[in-house]
């Protein structure tokens, strides 16, 4: 899966036709085979653009005004990234005319150990759902697979699970890298950081960590596209996907097999309802 050449060509064309102000892609790190997000405004930098199975970041994150300042952006997206972008479009965070989307039919990216990443193994939609140009061969929607870690944890005893998660919340340093790396966490000021808000926990105890991560995951419930940008960003290597995948599973199984960002104008599972939603858990 090497589309570097094509992307470079497209980027040059877009700059030449004055269609974009920014191009967001990937650049090779100088010291190893990993890549970093690469924002360019100068066409001279185009030759540095690459795309391989090491292009792990979700670049939709860079559509936040902080990074590309609401200007016209050319952007490379994989399947999951495009779902996030789809939601950003639906939630009026990006204007469609301001973004030129190069969709990649993704064959899965690699994790730090060089294996195919877990979310790519479990991916439901490797093809871009929204794009102006598509690279690679589309392989279509796949069967939903319940996350292996979730299954394993669900088998464990309650106390064991509680210990496991308390450990996670305790090790959270509240650096908010997860939030800042998530394309769907675009709020002007996160509710967890509003000093005037009642959600605010200045302290960084496990209790506050639980509160922050739970609130965060519930705000992404029905919206998370499983790109795992958050998990890759976490300096404490916390398995943050567990919270999201759990919500995703409950939502998929109970709310008409809902998956976030698959369709245009779908706002996520919490912003609609069905009369036939499960009622049996209610007394």
């Amino acid at each position, binding site marked *: 899966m090497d589309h570097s050449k094509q992307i470079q060509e497209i980027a040059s064309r877009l700059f030449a036709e004055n269609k974009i102000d920014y191009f967001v892609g990937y650049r090779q790190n100088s010291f190893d085979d990993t890549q970093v997000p690469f924002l360019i405004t100068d066409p001279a930098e185009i030759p540095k653009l690459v795309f391989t199975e090491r292009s792990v970041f979700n670049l939709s994150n860079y559509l936040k005004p902080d990074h590309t300042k609401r200007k016209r952006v050319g952007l490379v997206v994989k399947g999951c990234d495009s779902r996030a972008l789809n939601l950003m479009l639906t*939630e009026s*965070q990006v204007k469609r005319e301001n973004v030129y989307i190069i969709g990649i039919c993704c064959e899965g990216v690699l994790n730090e150990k060089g294996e195919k990443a877990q979310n790519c193994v479990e991916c439901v939609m490797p093809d871009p759902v929204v794009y102006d140009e598509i690279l690679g061969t589309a392989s279509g929607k796949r069967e939903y697979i319940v996350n292996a870690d979730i299954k394993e944890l669900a088998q464990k005893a309650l106390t064991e699970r509680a210990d496991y998660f308390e450990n996670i919340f305790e090790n959270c340093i509240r650096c908010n890298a997860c939030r800042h790396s998530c394309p769907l966490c675009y709020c*002007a*000021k996160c*509710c967890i950081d509003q000093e005037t808000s*009642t959600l605010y926990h200045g302290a960084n105890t496990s209790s506050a960590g639980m509160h922050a991560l739970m609130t965060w995951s519930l*705000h992404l419930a029905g919206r998370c596209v499983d790109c795992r940008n958050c998990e890759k960003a976490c300096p404490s290597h916390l398995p943050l996907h567990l919270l999201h995948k759990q919500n995703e599973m409950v939502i998929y199984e109970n709310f008409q097999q809902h998956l976030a960002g698959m369709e245009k104008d779908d706002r*996520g599972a*919490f*912003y609609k309802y069905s009369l036939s939603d499960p009622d049996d858990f209610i007394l």
Partner: protein
Amino acid sequence: MARVGVFVCFCGANIADFIDVPAVVEEAKKVKEVKVSVLYKYMCSDPGQQMIRDAIIQNRLTSVVVAACSPRMHEKTFRKALSDAGMNPYLLEVANIREHSSWVHQKDKKAATEKANDLIRMAIAKSIANEQLHEISVPVTKRALVIGGGIAGIQAALDIADARIPVTLVEKSPSIGGRMAQLDETFPTLDCSQCILTPKMVDVASHPYIELIPYAEVIELDGYVGNYKAKIKKKASYVNFDTCTGCGACTQKCPVKVPNEFNMNIDKRKAIYTPFPQAVPNKPVIDAEHCTMLLKGKCGICAKVCEKGSIDYKMVDEVIEREIGAVVVATGYDLWDPKPYEEYGVGRYKDIITSLEFERMVSASGPTNGVPLRPSDGKVPKNVVFIKCIGSRDEAKGIEYCSKICCMYTAKHAILLHHKVHDSHAYIFYMDIRAAGKGYEEFVKRAQVETAATYLRGRVSKIYKKGDKLMVRGEDAQIGQVVEVEADLVVLATAVIAPHENPALARLLGISYDKYGYLSEAHPKLRPVETAKAGIFLAGCTQAPKDIPDTVAQASACAAKVCGLFAGDTLKKDPMISTISNEFCSGCLNCVKVCPYQAIVTEEIPLGHGSKELRTVAKINEGVCQGCGSCVAICRSMAISLAGFTDPQIINEIVAI
């Protein structure tokens, strides 16, 4: 620094017997912000309220907690007391220590007292976060919109207009009159429907306060109670109503014949037509689906014969706007299509007709000049079988509910049949006879005795043809035997259903509808006329099946509600509504999606201080918001807060114990 007063009520023995009230008073004093904590036998009494008023002034209180009965009981009373002492009434919190403690824990005084302590602590904590709120006043546009020109719409429009309030009446067909205009005579008095309806229709047309817009539909409604803006689409009639005299020359000469829907397609009308002779307005319209001039550009006869030159083939749909303060929805009903009753041969046998077809036939002005005729051979029927509950009360094929009017009109039909064809005989298959209403039971008796109609209790299982007769096989449950009746004509009392446009209309108006498509009232018992959306009211069968008297009564009730709404120059509204902070709103607009009242609109604000670039944020329309808090809970940036139930208030309650 907050200064809270706590006022604990004995409620006679109701509270004092089961809660250690003096201890509760002392416990409240331990809270830092509490400046005064007292008890009294009946806080709601005058001296009790005086006590609160005095304490507010003496202690310069910033909020008040009354520990007494449920806030649903006396919140208003105590708010008034605060107001009388010059304090904002919304600084009150009620701790419900009667319904929630003393009455439900009568066997455990200690626990009840502890619970009361906690409830009071929670109320104190909440009250500290209370903010001063002010009733919202909303200006009112004193014009009503009535949708639907049947008897419900006519009655509502006339009653409102008689109170000198302008009304815009919108009717989708070329004439007002609705279903009632199709009826021959009405139960239980058998007055002629046309005779009682037509004068009202004429009144509508001539009333100085009524603007009648026929052949039109409401396509958009924006705004909120007192301040709606409606967009009305006037369908192209191709006839200039201003110059047309209604002479009828065009309809006579028109060569195109079309099934006449007013007469249930029994006869034909022309492509340019007035629905019925007494139509109001009595002006023809061209049916664009059938007019050959409009379809193929050939013909043009009507234009040639029109002396006034009123025919205009180039006319297009026109959208007009009206500013209105209230809406009465009176879209009436449809009839259920009995096709699923295949065992009856519906669709196969011509001589099975529906009640409304029968009604049209027996109408003096109807297609058969008042005589029922068999559609198959045009003969006058002798034996007529009426079958009730076709579709009604039939979960398998039709709908679950009772259509309410069929028992009565079938009795009427039996009587009318006897009037028109003296040697005829009516057989009526029924499940139950529901004749609750003034003069109704007597009317049914009249059908049974005077007309000697045969009432057979039971369902019809099959209808088959034998010669030119229809054999109706059914059960007579009273004798427990299968009976067969030889019929010349079978009349099916098909169920009343909601108009198929209702769901779309409900969405457009922002009101709710039930699973059958009937528009939902705000409360089934106590608010049967209002909808959940303020300023929108329901009249007639659009809410549920009902007969003419009930419809007229409901329409008049709507009129009273509209007049009440317009009585003042402004409307007062509870201030417990949501507000959105521009600073925190991220503009995802999910709140717009979730709001059940469409109370959230969008607004463009500068990106930053002094910036020319704009960004979109959500904004609450104060007039529409009902304060449910749905938007607050889904707002991820916590930009929305609901007055009276803000996050700090609720969180204070949670952390107070």
